């Protein structure tokens, strides 16, 4: 009987091996496709990756790092409250709140002076950033959203921020 139970537990554990939670992809396979992109394939890949990255804790935290290193924080605020540039933690999205919209904005910038990061970031990095940007307004799963960094605490943790229903702002 005891043996039976232990066997049962072994099965449970083994079952876990199936799921790949928190696997860290250090580099996405076809980086080269950025040089000669097959548009259709690229579009599918982007959509899938965007969705995956938007709920991946590690990807989001990489996005958090880039948000600081690429000076996003300088304009949008360390907590996404905005400054020279609009806030990212509120419900208003000038250029759309969809993953693809945010990706586009980061890649090609905006007419109002946001620089294009097409040449400064890999696609993967952009996806990571998109994930982080979404988390700022509470739109990331709380289990994946960042909690705090080791710096001055300037805002309530994104993981505890209630999701803002996105609205298009007319300005």
């Amino acid at each position: 009987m005891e043996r039976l139970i232990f066997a049962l537990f072994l099965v449970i554990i083994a079952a876990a091996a199936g799921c790949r939670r928190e696997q860290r992809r250090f580099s996405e396979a076809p980086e080269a496709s950025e040089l000669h992109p097959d548009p259709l394939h690229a579009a599918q890949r982007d959509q899938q990756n965007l969705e995956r990255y938007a709920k991946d804790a590690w990807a989001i935290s990489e996005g958090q790092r880039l948000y600081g290193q690429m000076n996003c924080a300088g304009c949008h605020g360390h907590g996404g409250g905005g400054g020279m540039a609009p806030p990212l933690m509120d419900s208003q999205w000038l250029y759309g709140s969809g993953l693809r919209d945010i990706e586009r904005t980061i890649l090609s910038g905006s007419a109002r002076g946001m620089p294009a990061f097409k040449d400064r970031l890999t696609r993967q990095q952009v996806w990571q950033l998109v994930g982080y940007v979404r988390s700022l307004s509470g739109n990331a799963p709380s289990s994946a959203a960042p909690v705090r960094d080791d710096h001055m605490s300037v805002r309530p943790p994104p993981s505890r921020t209630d999701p803002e229903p996105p609205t298009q702002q007319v300005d």
Partner: protein
Amino acid sequence: MNSTFEPTLAEASPAAEPRQRSTLYDLLATTEHTAIGRRFIATALGFFLVGGVLALLMRLQLATPLAHVMGPDRYNQLFTTHGSTMMFLFAVPIMQGLGLYFVPLMVGARNLAFPRLANFAFWIYLFGGLFLYIALLSNTGPDAGWFSYVPLAGPEHSPGKRVDVWAQLITFTELSALSVAVNLIVTTFKHKAPGLSLDRLPIFVWASLVTSFMVVFAMPAVIIASSCLALDRLVATHFFNPAEGGDALLWQHMFWFFGHPEVYIIFLPGVGMVSEIVVTASKRPMFGYVPVVLANVATAILAFGLWVHHMFATGLPQLGASFFTGASILIAIPTGVQFFCWIATLWGSRPKVDVPFGFVLAFFATFLIGGLTGVMLAAVPINLQVHDTFFVVAHFHYVLIGGAVFPLFGGLTHWFPKLTGRLLSERLGWLSCGLVFVGFNLAFFPQHLLGLRGMPRRIYTYLPETGWGFWNFVSTIGAFTLGLGALVFLFNAARTLRSGARASANPFRAYSLEWALSSPPPRSADRIVPVAASRYPLWLGELGRVEGLARDEVLVTRVVDAEPDHVGHAPTPTIMPPITALATAVLIVACLFTPWGLPVGVVLVSLTLFVWFWPTDREPAFQTRERVSSESVGKEVLP
């Protein structure tokens, strides 16, 4: 003369009835300390096996420079899980498991003081272990090292649930460890057989008693630390955030205040077994019983005063460092005393060199080396060079495998009959002993050299130029030999379980009370409570017995002189401990994913506890019964 060896209680009490079909309920509700202890031991051995496999995988990766067995991310999860497994899921639980099984037998108690709590402890422990491995297999294994230094383990640098899993694993295992510790303490203090006063306790019982006290003092520190870490990671507190007034070093202090005693928590029961085996083999009384006991106590106290030697490189003031150097060196003295007493005990006897004794010899050689390198590590100038290198890896494996695992194998062999009623095969025993000893030294001795030649810990790869390749390869070979040895040992055990020779009550003609009972011992209710007349009850003096205890009663005696105090009711089996454990597991795990986990979990746990503790008329409170009084017992004790 032979008469002294005749087990005087075995035939009097019905031998353990052959395994009868027990229902699932019996299984979960059991209050038999033997069953619980056996489960602890078996589970711990299971985790030992798994942890060993992880180690072998790492050795494969390190066998050659720039190997590609696995990437850094996987490697980091592996060594973290390996360390945590060996520390929290193997070493401590198996020592405590042996305690649960043997302490009551050795003090002549019918059962543990709190068998239900022990049952709870087991399930909590099991759930904790499962939790860790489910996480590891789903690629969520902790990856910040078994001592999870912040800020690396903090929310910014360890995103996701990986480190949370580690923090909660601590909660699981420490809960279990604490429950067992209080159990052993009270059992030793209040359930000794009459006549078995404190100064007559077997050394192993002393060791497990001291260890249990260490657990009680050390574990809270790490539970608090890991809770602070979890709070930082889950609700953005700033305990360890220097920017906002927290302190990264605070973690190291809190952790090592537990972490260093932890080493002795693992190692003291080991030396306890060594004493038992030495005495049994030499058929002589333990030389310097009192000094050895005091040495144990001294070790326990000193162990709390030298955690800082894990932190010399963090840049401490010279004087403080020197103080901790002193403390760390000091602790070698009690250990030395024990060595001398063992040698003195063996001196002049010609001990029966059986497998357990073989493991003890292995222990002598390896642990001595570990201890000496330990003294080196205590010296700041040397420490600063070898700290966080493979030298340290070698050192603590010599201490922990040499000082705890060899005695453990010895002890398991020694007590195997008492655990299973069968005798292990000597031949296979010697084979495993030899393989383990050779493999171990082959695996870990070169690591001293690697460390001195600049190889840091926890690197998943290294360059060919470093010239570390050769010794790493040797080390890997050694590791596999060691693994083989362990397999042989387990195979031997498994084979014996099926077809081993049946064991008599006291096959090794040992002295302590557990050998007075049949192998395996009868159910606790059927046991006769003996009355000890000396420190070596089966060797010296008549073995008395307490009359008039009903099957559902236990005898409670006084702490020091073990005079009967009163009679209590034996706790009856109940399903609640496993259920409470389940509720607790829900609480601990759910907290990781939602703040609601806390309130919901707390409610669940309190509900289960209510049910568990609801008074029933089946269990009247303790009552003193005049029939069993110190006099009446005394009459039987006195010749």
